């Protein structure tokens, strides 16, 4: 059974604990090879707990939910890995435990109190947590950013955004830090800071402030946010791009992970699939180095918006190396570019970006066929089918209100344009009818002329001469009689 300190919550459970490969990978690099006492405050997943246990002599896990604590205590290995304590942060502080060498609160400071806790604001909670750490301790704290892109674009009212603070409006806290600078001021001694985009992407904050629109760091952030569960007013990708252009991407990240004290060397970025380091040569991902430059999608969207088809054509002919970053898995001949172009089409059209191609090309596969040909790939039916299948498996942007309104507006425009098209066709048919009437009149005139010619004296003379000539030639006469007899018998 877990140890109980004041402030436990029951019945209660905290869902979605902090964790995942990005956080675990980051902590694996950060934590010392061997620490004495470690505190993990708040809900964290089993990988984080196992990692801490493997690097520490003694691990304490603080959970406010009694049932979560019981389940965790029951699930831990027989040889024990950590001590589970249930209760609130202030309750643990009251118990005056020995100082910890490592404190991990990657889940943040919002799920550490219960309804029986004092009304502690964010700085007070931070101070309590740091009070549990020894003077040279390594402390990791997750901080939510109220000025984040997803917060600004969240279409829910403020009161409906949080489920865990019903007993007290924790986010209505004037002392809660609202920027990275305020976090630094409040905590002091922040050694490094990582921006968190969703649960699976961490990017070093300094790199984010220096990145630009369309660069890999921005694309990492955008990709993570596009899979966010937050119901949105508008697509996050556009906002991410604007933020990157302004050098504000770190400032509008959904949250940060701040590190106080010294730890191991960490990478530039952590994702669900691995890590990456930004070097002087570019982004080192495994044994590959990718340029720290605008990606193909950004360039192509810009060329399409400028309606610069020659520029688009020239760029499409050189874009091959970037297929690898657009489509997961190993390159598969011409199928990979097909999949990449299908994905680009979906983003271009679905995102209501400006471009010079008519709707009948966008509706079917014609755009993809056009672009594939620009890339030097013959767009066969097989390549198109397989490319389409792969593209359908790639993550798509989540629905948002602005896109829904734009879809609606586009549908109205389509109706108006179709009506115009019908009007134009009717008018063309009228021209064509006129053309037919003119031709018909010409035919009638010619027929009348022919009739007049036939009934004229010279035509009659010519006819008589022809008959006489036939009579004077027995062979032709016999032939003519035979032909008429045959026609009569077959009648």
């Amino acid at each position, binding site marked *: 059974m877990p140890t109980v300190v004041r402030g436990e919550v029951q019945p209660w459970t905290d869902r979605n604990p902090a964790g995942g490969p990005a956080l675990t990978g980051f902590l694996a690099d950060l934590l010392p090879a061997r620490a004495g006492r470690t505190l993990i405050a708040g809900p964290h997943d089993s990988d984080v707990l196992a990692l801490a246990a493997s690097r520490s002599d003694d691990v304490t896990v603080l959970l406010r939910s009694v049932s979560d604590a019981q389940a965790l205590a029951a699930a831990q290995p027989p040889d024990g890995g950590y001590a589970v304590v249930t209760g609130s942060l202030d309750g643990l502080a009251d118990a005056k435990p020995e100082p910890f060498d490592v404190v991990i609160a990657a889940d943040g400071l919002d799920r550490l109190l219960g309804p029986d806790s004092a009304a502690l604001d964010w700085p007070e909670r931070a101070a309590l947590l740091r009070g549990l750490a020894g003077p040279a301790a390594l402390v990791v704290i997750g901080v939510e950013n109220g000025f984040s892109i997803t917060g600004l674009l969240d279409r829910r009212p403020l009161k409906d955004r949080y489920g865990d603070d019903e007993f007290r409006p924790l986010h209505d806290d004037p002392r809660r830090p609202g920027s990275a600078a305020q976090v630094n001021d409040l905590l002091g001694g922040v050694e490094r800071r990582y921006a968190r985009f969703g649960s699976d992407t961490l990017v070093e904050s300094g790199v984010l402030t220096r990145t630009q629109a369309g660069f890999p760091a921005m694309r990492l952030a955008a990709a993570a946010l596009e899979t966010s569960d937050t119901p949105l007013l508008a697509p996050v990708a556009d906002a991410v791009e604007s933020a990157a252009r302004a050098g504000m991407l770190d400032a509008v990240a959904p949250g940060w992970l701040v590190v106080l004290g010294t730890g191991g060397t960490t990478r530039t970025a952590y994702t669900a699939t691995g890590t990456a380091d930004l070097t002087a040569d570019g982004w080192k991902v495994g044994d590959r180095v990718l340029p720290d430059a605008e990606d193909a999608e950004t360039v192509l969207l810009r060329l399409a918006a400028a*309606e610069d088809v020659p520029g688009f054509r020239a760029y499409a002919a050189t874009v091959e190396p970037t297929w690898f970053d657009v489509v997961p898995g190993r390159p598969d001949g011409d199928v990979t570019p097909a999949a990449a172009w299908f994905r680009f089409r979906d983003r271009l059209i679905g995102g209501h970006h400006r471009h010079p*191609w008519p709707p009948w*090309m966008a509706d079917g596969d014609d755009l993809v066929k056009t672009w594939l040909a620009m890339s030097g790939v013959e767009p066969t039916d097989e390549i198109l089918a397989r490319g389409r299948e792969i593209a359908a498996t790639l993550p798509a942007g989540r629905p948002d209100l602005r896109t829904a309104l734009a879809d609606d507006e586009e549908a109205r425009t389509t109706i108006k344009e179709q009506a*115009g*098209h019908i009007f*134009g066709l009717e008018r*063309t048919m009228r021209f064509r009818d006129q053309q037919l009437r003119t031709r018909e009149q010409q035919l009638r005139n010619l027929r009348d002329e022919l009739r007049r010619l036939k009934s004229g004296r010279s035509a009659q003379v010519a006819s008589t001469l022809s008959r006489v000539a036939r009579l004077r030639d027995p062979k032709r006469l016999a032939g003519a009689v035979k032909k008429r007899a045959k026609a009569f018998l077959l009648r």
Partner: protein
Amino acid sequence: MHHHNHYYGQSHILARWAGLDDQHPPRIRGYLQHGWNVGCGWNPVHEFFDGAWRYTWSDPPRRRGHTLGRRNYHVVGAPFLYLSELEPDLGTVPEQEREGTLWFLFHGWEGGGKGGKIEGDHARLISEIKETETEPVTISLYYTEFERLEVRRAYEQAGFQVICFGKRGWNYEGTDRRFLYKQLKAFRGFKRVAANRLSTAIFFGVAAGCVPAVYGDPMELEGDNPLFGGQARIARLWPEMLGKEIDLAAARATTDVELGRHHLMPPAEMRMLFDWNPRD
């Protein structure tokens, strides 16, 4: 779908480029620019159906069209350039054997009851042509002037050969499908192309290898709409194309822009753009 698309057999040329029947070209779903102009690609009062696409020769008309609130543009390049690709040998002679000047008089139009005649001092223009040109001159008149005997005879009596390339047609009737073929063939035999206004023929001539010249009385067009700025604007925007001696390299560069050479597209792409592939 508009009958202007058939002017000068332009639809026919594009259909041939796309590998389709060029005797009876399929309908183009939109409007095809039929002559070079200083505006959006069409005359200032041209009507457009909602949703129809606008196919311009080059990018500048597309940009100007945007300022008029028009959208749905796609730049395709001038059909004359496609014809040049389709007919690489038509009318070609060794470069040193090209001679004479093909001189285009600014022309009127059919008018449709709204005017369309040109008015100016032909005698003075003839004098200037004689003073300027050092080799034989052939005057090209559009049929609207060719059929005005007083105009045609003025040039014939001046000793020039006078020719007419045919009619562009109207409401799908009377289109000379070989109009541009005949022009291309002629251009490739001449050393110079000249006109009294910067016009389509000058750009076609330069594209076909002629040295250009633009001089003389630009004359007045009955009912001319100065909305786009007229001759003064032309002088401001294309000074390198005006005069009796023009820098050929500069003229070629401008011609490539105005005829949209970089916008030429492969046949398969054109079939998709014009919705020319069968859908059933």
